[in-house]
């Protein structure tokens, strides 16, 4: 493919220090041909927004492992709209809530917050990359 690489922003939200998965996601999406801006751990919603604007990112991939996802992730979609990032894709993944919870419940909760796709810690990264490409293509068609 000679198309310019797609920019995505990656980071672990809130006060979450889990850095291992984040490093793996960076390596993986880079290898997959995306242009990854990795903000690392402990990233605020504002930092995500700013990086997305600066890099012209098409998607933000938010991680939350430590359980405070439910608190930390609220409002990101609204902030995106406020900043004119109307159709940026928001993916979120990890151990999103406190305690072992049926995935359907978690998914519903985060979809209601405006995330386009929600992933558990067991998600297959190859599938994620495929979905991301599909979703981006669909957005493009919609444009």
């Amino acid at each position, binding site marked *: 493919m000679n198309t310019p690489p797609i920019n995505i922003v990656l980071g672990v939200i809130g006060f979450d220090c889990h*850095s291992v998965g984040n490093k793996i996601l960076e*390596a993986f999406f880079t290898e997959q041909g995306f242009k990854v801006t990795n903000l690392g751990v*402990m990233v605020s919603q504002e930092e995500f927004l700013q990086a997305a604007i600066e890099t012209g990112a098409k998607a933000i991939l938010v991680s939350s492992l430590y359980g405070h996802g439910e608190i930390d992730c609220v409002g990101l979609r609204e902030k995106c709209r406020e900043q004119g990032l109307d159709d940026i894709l928001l993916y979120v993944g990890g151990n999103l809530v*406190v305690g072992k919870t049926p995935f359907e419940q978690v998914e519903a909760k985060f979809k209601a917050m405006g995330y386009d796709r929600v992933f558990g*810690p067991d998600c297959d990264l190859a599938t994620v990359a495929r979905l991301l490409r599909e979703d981006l293509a669909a957005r493009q068609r919609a444009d």
Partner: protein
Amino acid sequence: MKSYQIPFDRFLSIRAEVLKTWPTGEGLTLEDGLAYQRTLPPAKNFARAMATASREGRILLQPRAGVALIPDHIKLLQYLETEGEADLLPTTIDAYTRQNRYQEAANGIQKSLEARASLLNGFPAVNHGVAGCRQVVESVRSPIQVRHGTPDARLLAEITLAAGFTSFEGGGISYNIPYAKKVPLAKSIEDWKYVDRLVGWYEEQGIPINREPFGPLTGTLVPPFISHAVAIIEGVLALRQGVRSLTLGYGQGGNLIQDVAAMVTLKELAHEYFAREGFTDYELTTVFHQWMGGFPEDEAKAFAVICWGSTVAVFARADKIIAKSPHEAMGIPTKEANAQGLRASRQVINMLRDQKFAGGADFERETDLIRREVRCLLDKVYELGHGDLEAGTIAAFAAGVLDVPFAPAACNHGKILPMRDHEGYIRVFNRGQLPLSAEILDFHRSRLEERAKAEKREVCFQMVTDDIYAVSKGRLVGRPR
């Protein structure tokens, strides 16, 4: 012997500032904390429990546990004590408190009240204050330890120790490098000197308080010599402030022989360096952490990981085991799942405690190796600090002489890459700036080559990734599919 102890008046002036950082600190006096500690029965003292068990050769079991609200937290600890047969209790602190974000913690408490469930990943002890924490202490029979991951834990220590907690986990390195992003190492070390000084003050007054540097660091393929170097440094820094009861930790690597060798050398090397620093009057015990990396999601498989950890801990004669639960991969465990992890561990301990570990040539090789590796690192640290361990440590992290794999902290070099060899021992693939001798590096390399050959691939980064996932995918060594 040079005294590194923070002078008491300086301690007090820092203290005044610390107590102001959140309303629950206001008006807290050292005397009140001391008076309260004096009311507690010896059976509730963590330091005594560790010392006694160690003397009697018993292995103590401790879970991790903490929820947002006091009544729920009490129920949780009581359950772990009765149904979980825990010997020692924890109070795991939530991640906002760990970053001194008490306002966010307050919000989390509020949301938890509304949701009638804990939305926080731990117990916000600072927000609950001394009175709230004492309710917890008074509701259980066993000693309680504060377990957290807080770069600046000064207020947390003031409140929890005054409230009758008798052990405090962490250290200036081990609660920065794996737990923070932008905290300068000099700052966290300084703040932990304050915590150790506070513990030392209680010791001076006759109240033993246990201190436990956090051994496992990132919990992910950390070679024993790296965590040993950090544990020993944190031990020295604690002793310098008057800490007497010290429990050094190690997180399971996965290979039996390497893990037993690690536990044996940890104690031995610690004594050696503590003596070199002039310390003789302390009580040293060890804690073994069951597998700290990614767990399998399947609970049956998680039980296997938990039991294997306990097995190794018994053969290694650990004084204490920190147990995981079958929910580990998925979320903070329910009290039931947490107790299951404890009971499985208890069964293993009791079935194996009378049995001997065989040792053998490989075991000798590994103990010898770890000793040499730790010396390579610590010699260099002393050199960089011109004989001073604290200064040397800060310089060493800056230079990558000390380097923790996969850590988030900016003050960590982040260049070394560990990898398993053919038998599952954790070795060094990319040494970064670690000052290991050529001989040691050759050994590591040859072991990795042996694996690569068996797997018919080159030694490569993919193997590191494979190793990170391996246990959660059901094996130890990340073989190609």
